[in-house]
């Protein structure tokens, strides 16, 4: 890094360019419909969410399977693991064997957690585990089973 300030400035300009472009595009789209085309009309059938043309069955804002939430939670934990491993990855040559042992233990502990989680079938998306599936009234029919 010759001049970190300059690099940060370059990144800032690029980010602002992208943000500006995106917001301008959104404004243009809105303007086109509202001012140029003037086609925006709300009707009952047009406003209804698409559901293959059959009468609507309930609201879309229903609760969905708890497995998605678990995936997200596991993601946070493994993301944090990655964060702890990044400093190791860039210094592992200087750290030598001691660092390697430390990391092996760290990874092993988390691999144990992952193994337990998989063993409990939490990330298994199959129908055989119906005892955990939320009651039908709570969940969208297809949320827990993607097929």
């Amino acid at each position: 890094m010759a001049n970190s300030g300059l690099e940060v400035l370059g990144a800032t300009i690029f980010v602002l360019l992208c943000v500006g472009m995106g917001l301008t595009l959104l404004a243009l789209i809105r303007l086109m419909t509202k001012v140029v085309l003037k086609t925006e009309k709300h009707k009952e059938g047009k406003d209804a969410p698409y559901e293959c043309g059959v009468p609507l069955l309930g609201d879309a804002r229903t609760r969905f399977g708890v497995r998605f939430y678990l995936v997200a939670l596991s993601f946070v934990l493994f993301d944090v693991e990655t964060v702890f491993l990044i400093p190791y990855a860039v210094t592992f040559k200087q750290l030598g064997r001691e660092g390697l042992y430390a990391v092996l233990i760290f990874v092993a502990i988390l691999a144990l957690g992952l193994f337990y989680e998989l063993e409990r079938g939490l990330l298994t998306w199959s129908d055989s585990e119906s005892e955990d599936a939320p009651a039908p009234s709570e969940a969208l029919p297809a949320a827990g089973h993607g097929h």
Partner: protein
Amino acid sequence: MLSLGLDASAVGWKLLPVLLVFGAVLAVVPLLVYLERKVCAWIQNRVGPNRVGLLGPDGLAQGVLGFSGGGKRILGGLLQPLADAIKLISKEDFIPAQADKFLFSLAPFFALLPPFLTFVVVPVGADLTFGGTTVPLIVADLGVGMLWVLSVSSLAAYGVQLGGWASNSKFSLLGGVRATAQMISYEITMGLVLLSVFMHYDSLSLREIVQAQATYFDPLLGRLAANGLGSWGVWHQPLAALLFVICAFAENNRLPFDMPECEAELVGGYHTEYSSMKFGMFFQGEYIAMLAMGAVISTLFFGGWHYPGYASVAAASPNLAALISLAVLGAKVMIFVLFQMWVRWTLPRFRYDQVMELGWKVLIPLALVNLVVTALVNL
């Protein structure tokens, strides 16, 4: 505190790579839309878009100037992206009454932005020299390098998640939730794979990673030789390259990982309710993400902008060498983009449970093993 010892000329020259990268991405995306339709047509033994072109019986020249340029269609369909854009922008931007209006409008923006930002740290070419001033062709050579790519790609899930939720449609919600769960699952593997890449190159900076791939050990000469293909990351980290490519497909929601859309069961997935250019922004985002992944993969595993013979060209004319390097990176990215299209139109889609099981039971353990093996080998 960060010090900004800036002079006007340095800032001025910095604008060159910034505008170059920004403009190049914007210019290439419409071409990719055309290319995808053509490639799909070739694979399915069809003609593909061939009408909206410049020359030919139904080309733009005929319509505007009355000049047909002969009876043959030359590069017919080349203006198809333009026609698509005009069509999309002149459609009604409809916001369903039951949708959350603010988030519904914001979601396409979130889909477009993160893939664009990936390009900030990608070195697109060798240094240009103008009268003693060296202009590195990189938007920002940040100290964190690849970590920028990781953090930016972690923001990519918002577009689909918010779009799916704000539409207030069942198909959208299912698509959005599935997409988010899939993207975050594969992000872990991506992060772990990048760790072993850092270890191999012993650096976070993409500039240094490209430099490291410029040399290789020549068994005939018995010493390090410059400008070889043997130093490409893919030979040293084959498993990492494979895992990263798989994750790139999953992150971009491309087939065989296009769960979030899967027309057959979810209509359009998270963008079922979107119309007009807002829908266009979602698919532009997808093409930019393809480009971004292509750029990152070529930089990490396929030598970046480096090419055999760079040193000798650079000795003669550094600027010529830099221009060639731009083209070389462009070609590498295009090859990867074509690969993504080829896969899309060849492979069938996974089932959702297969996607998640592949991610958690196969890819993450493999990435962890790769990490430990890399540490053992390089220590």
